[in-house]
């Protein structure tokens, strides 16, 4: 009488425990190029995620094609059919080979990144841009001042006198520009 009771209690206890299980599936990679094999990990993770299970593979063997997951919530046989995996891999490869339009778009992003970069290149670009801005604004001010003097002048002689009071704008030298660039960088005002 005690034995069946013991077995029943044991089975009830057992049912409350779950044992982790690794589930594996083998994809036929015999006809895959090296590039396709290299995409196997990314592909199976992509497919299982799209099937509703965010789980990275516990192991992927690109030489045998065996992929394993710990306690997957989906049926690997239905997710990782040969067609699914091959088509997914080929799509990833195609996506890795951008069109000229994509390349141009990416290069634009790189250019913008360079301007925003906190590293040396970015600081240099912003320092140069900042100096150009200041020089242009200096010319704007001078032009505005000139217009003001023209508007206020009563005659040509008066205009000459007025314009003579405006500051001289001497040429900049390369040495001055390089020094100013260094000063802008060191000042910290172009750090970002």
């Amino acid at each position: 009488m005690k034995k069946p009771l013991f077995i029943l209690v044991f089975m009830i206890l057992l049912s409350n425990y779950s044992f982790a299980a690794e589930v594996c599936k083998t994809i036929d990679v015999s006809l895959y190029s090296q590039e396709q094999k290299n995409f196997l990990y990314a592909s199976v993770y992509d497919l299982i995620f799209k099937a509703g299970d965010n789980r990275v593979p516990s192991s992927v063997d690109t030489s045998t094609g065996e992929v394993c997951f710990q306690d997957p919530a989906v049926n690997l046989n239905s997710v990782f059919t040969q067609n699914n995996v091959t088509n997914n891999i080929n799509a990833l490869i195609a996506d890795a080979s951008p069109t000229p339009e994509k390349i141009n778009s990416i290069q634009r992003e790189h250019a913008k990144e360079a301007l925003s970069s906190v590293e040396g290149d970015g600081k240099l670009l912003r320092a140069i841009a900042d100096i150009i801005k200041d020089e242009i604004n200096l010319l704007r001010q001078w032009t505005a001042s000139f217009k003001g003097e023209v508007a206020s002048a009563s005659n040509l002689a008066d205009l000459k006198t007025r314009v003579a009071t405006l500051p001289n704008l001497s040429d900049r030298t390369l040495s001055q520009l390089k020094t100013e660039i260094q000063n802008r960088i060191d000042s910290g005002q172009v750090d970002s």
Partner: protein
Amino acid sequence: MRKISFLVLFLLVSSICFASEQVLVGRGAGNISGGAMAPLMGQDPSFWQFTESSAHCVASSAGTLKKLTAQLSAAPGAGTSRTVVLRKNASSSSLTCTISNTDTSCSDTLNTVTVAAGDRFSIQVNNSGSPAAASIRYSTVFDGSTSGESFYCGNSNGLSMASATNVQFFSTRQANTGTMLMPTSGTFKNLHISLSVAPGAGKSWAFTVNKSGATSLTCTVSDTNTTCSDTSNSFTVSAGDEVTISSSPTNTPASNVPSVAVTFLADTAGQFVFAMSDTSSPSNTSTNYMNVQSAKSNAFSGTEISTITNGFTAKAIYVNLNGSPGSGKSYTYTLRQNAGSTSLSCAVSDLNTTCSTTTDVTISDNDSINTQSVPSASPSFQAVRVGILGFISGGGASGPKKGAVILTI
């Protein structure tokens, strides 16, 4: 019973050959676009390339590449991944690993890729989904077939070479940079050049490797050819010597993106070099950081930038400045490890222009390393070259060995 022991020594036809290992490091500063490529070694390719010839790095020594390790600055995110792969001669190799979901690093310590002189290598990153923006650091190990040999390759990372210039050893987008300050002695040999475009009929590019201005290795790419090599000549260097590569055009050859490589045979097997040079100066008021293997201008950063590495022993640091810091002033250069300073540190002070320190520092797999510059008393701005000596003992044994068999009768 008499026991007679015979010691039999086998001298095989082939001599003993113990390989030497060299750590290669690379880092990309910008976000990686899917399918983009960067050179095998060298750092701060701010612009990843989509054309193989603008990214590849030509090898000048034979051996194998192994132990790929890669780390992202940000995890890809749920459902996305980045696959890092070593490409050889414009094809994907078996040396690859994938970083997915919330992971930030991966490694492949299983596969190896054979290397022959003239082979071209690059690192490619392929994306699945739309991973979070991230930069990448990566490292591999070159296991040379010849004891003591390491190789150093560079690519202008897409920047076309249109006129005479100093070509960089390590990938950068600027020309006129790229001096290797040697922290040890040995022999330079095996110059290999690969161009993206042939010079054209009757036109040529001549490449020379120079030590202190003297031409020592040279080869010329002309007409419809895209490669050349000099495997006949060699020259020796001592610790503190500086080596550069320069190019000279004849008859206005086509503008192109060059890849250069040269072999260094260290006098002490197992030694290899990390070389950094910058034609501009770090800050003379603030601490700056620089990658250990790079040739660039304005590459110093106030933010700590670094690269990931495979394990090795760092044994020396050498520093050369273009001019002295000034009386009572100095720059202190230090090898950093995981954002902490190591004992490999030296200061260039007063009217001096050089310094060096020799001591052993153990660097482990996946450590972050970089170079730090700390100014004192607002020294004069000075361009800088830094050479760090790396060492891996033993390496892998290859080839037949001497052996002893004891027979007891």
